[in-house]
């Protein structure tokens, strides 16, 4: 176990990938000279050269499309999109090309593309840089959607994604980059098919992913003081969803609170909730509850931003409501 920040873990993963496989290259806005908006590729331009560390124009559709083309051509591109908000400009490439070419070509072509992007709020960067749209991507068959929440997953999932023959989208919660955690070498290589139980409990399942994991763990800590043992399930992979781990937890605790930084309506939490209802209805001792973001553009002022997002206190309150 070594201590490192989430940012260092992402950087270590990228570096290892670049060192180990000459087909891997990184491209995106400011990844080269600037060293990455979140400093994940600092020093890479000097170390790996402009062929493999490519600054792109501000045109998401173009460079994601170029990534698809490179993957088709046998490369292992890692495309960095600055935030999930900007990725919307590349939706056509993602939904109509990346996700469909294996199918459209009758299996003749695959797209071994990795797209990383920052998601989430909490840093006072206002409504155009703070959204959590990974749930939208999880809607699309043909791609994989990963949400690493720990430093181990930050590195491990990137390496696993590069081994996948199909497009993999990694959503790194921007709030987590400076977070320090224990890096577990023994956990490598990580799988990108299973959810993980981050905390054992028997009274309620807190089901979450990404940046909300830490809030759920904090809520679980508070609940212990009230005699409620919460189990915390980190989904890790939104598509394909490992529902069996979720159902096993709910069958044990009989209560579920899904925490998702996305907006409630049509949220990924709604999908998880529906699948729990389908798969564990007779094990439920109460309705599935959701803690999601307020349905507003994420506000700039800190107090409003805090109020708009799931927080440990709101998670605790949801659990209390569920317990009657």
């Amino acid at each position, binding site marked *: 176990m070594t201590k490192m920040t989430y940012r260092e873990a992402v950087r270590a993963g990228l570096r290892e990938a670049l060192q180990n496989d000459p087909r891997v290259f990184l491209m995106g806005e400011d990844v080269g000279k600037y060293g990455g908006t979140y400093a994940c590729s600092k020093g890479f331009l000097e170390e790996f050269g402009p062929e493999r560390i490519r600054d792109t124009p501000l045109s998401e559709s173009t460079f994601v499309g170029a990534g698809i083309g490179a993957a088709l051509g046998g490369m292992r591109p890692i495309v960095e999109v600055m935030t999930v908000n900007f990725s919307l400009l590349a939706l056509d490439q993602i939904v109509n090309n990346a996700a469909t070419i294996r199918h459209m070509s009758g299996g003749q072509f695959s797209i071994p593309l990795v797209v990383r992007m920052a998601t989430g709020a909490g840093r006072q960067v206002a409504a155009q840089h703070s959204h959590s749209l990974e749930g939208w991507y999880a809607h699309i068959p043909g791609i994989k959607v990963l949400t690493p929440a720990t430093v181990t997953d930050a590195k491990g999932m990137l390496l696993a994604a590069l081994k996948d023959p199909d497009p993999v989208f990694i959503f790194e919660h921007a709030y987590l980059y400076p977070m320090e955690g224990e890096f577990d070498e023994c956990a490598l290589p990580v799988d990108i098919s299973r959810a993980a139980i981050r905390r054992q409990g028997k009274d309620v399942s807190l089901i979450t992913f990404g940046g909300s994991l830490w809030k759920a763990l904090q809520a679980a800590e508070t609940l212990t003081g009230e005699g409620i043992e919460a189990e915390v399930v980190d989904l890790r992979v939104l598509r394909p969803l490992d529902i069996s781990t979720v159902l096993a937890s709910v069958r044990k605790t*009989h209560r579920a609170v899904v925490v998702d930084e996305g907006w409630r309506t049509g949220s990924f939490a709604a999908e998880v909730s529906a699948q729990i209802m389908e798969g564990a*209805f*007779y*094990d*439920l*001792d*109460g309705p599935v509850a959701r803690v999601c973001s307020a349905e507003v553009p994420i506000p700039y002022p800190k107090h409003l931003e805090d109020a708009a997002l799931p927080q440990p206190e709101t998670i605790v309150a949801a659990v209390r*409501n*569920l*317990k*009657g």
Partner: protein
Amino acid sequence: MAEFVMPTLGSDMTQGTLVEWKKKVDDRVTKGEIIAEVDTEKAAIEIESFYTGIIHQLITKPGETVPVGTVMAIIQEEGKPVGPIEARTEAKPAKESPPSPVREPVLSPPPEPGRLRISPAAKQLAAELRVDPSVLKGTGPGGAITLDDIRAAAAAPTKEPPTVAADRQARMRETIAAAMARSKREIPHYYLSTTVDMGRAMTWIKEENLKRPVTDRLLYGVLLIKAVALALRQVPELNALWKENASVQSADIHVGVAISIRQGGLIAPAIHDTDKQSLGELMGKFQDLVKRARAGTLRGSELSDPTITVTSLGEQGVDSVFGVIYPPQVALVGFGKVVERPWVVDGQVVSRPIVAASLSADHRVTDGHRGAVFLSAVDRLLQEPGQL
């Protein structure tokens, strides 16, 4: 066809358990005839039929607990065409289909029969552990029954059938607690008291009893009950029920008489049309009520119909009683012990039997002035016992 529904037998009653049917399918039943025995928190109650006709179908099974308003049986009414059940409103709870012509809707509307609020997991566990969830009180959100409730019920010592006295006693305590707490929470009580010279009444009753066979002798208590009933004719505002933010006077006077149950608790069944009964009749009915209250065989209408309550703690030797009104009634009359005391009659201090009469009344409905008029009327009536 008419629906026979689980009636409300007290303002706090939400459900009842069918003990037995007194009729079979195809039996003829007349209005007012006992059709079933139902167990409530208070007592096993014999329920009268609201209809005359032939029993078409018995739906509820003995031992089953059903919410108030649940259709328990279908009666083919005499003189009505055989056919589908008539407009549901007619068959809905007691409120809409009075069991007797005098009956005012006494009770708050019954809760929606609706589905039981029970979690899917709890429902399944209940089936496994053979726990009847319909009798449980849920502790989950919105009163939902949860796994813990089922586990607790299963772990609890096997409950005797609800007819067992100890269980009923506990439930009666709960019922009284709920009613009295509600009364003190909602009803702004005011209290009046006056001392009534019982000299004439006691002398009259002594002479009257000499004329009667031992079995028909009167107790002074019936004089008090009758005096209250007649005084209510003069102050009818006190003979009323509080319903949905307004008081509704009752055309009939059904005095509820508080009867203590030996094992603990009390019950106040009605003597119907108290003001129209002779003293002899009242005595008979009172004794019958006491007997049946203690045996647990009161009738539904006796429990649900009182329009005022009289409580007398004289037997216990207290001078006076300031009672708590039994909602939705708006008044309660209390009597203490009849005691010999120095009393001034025509300027002379003499020894007289006296009794403290008190009135607890709902200030939303009446003011002290009317209450005073009422107590004076009681006093005056007791001075002419021969007229009672």
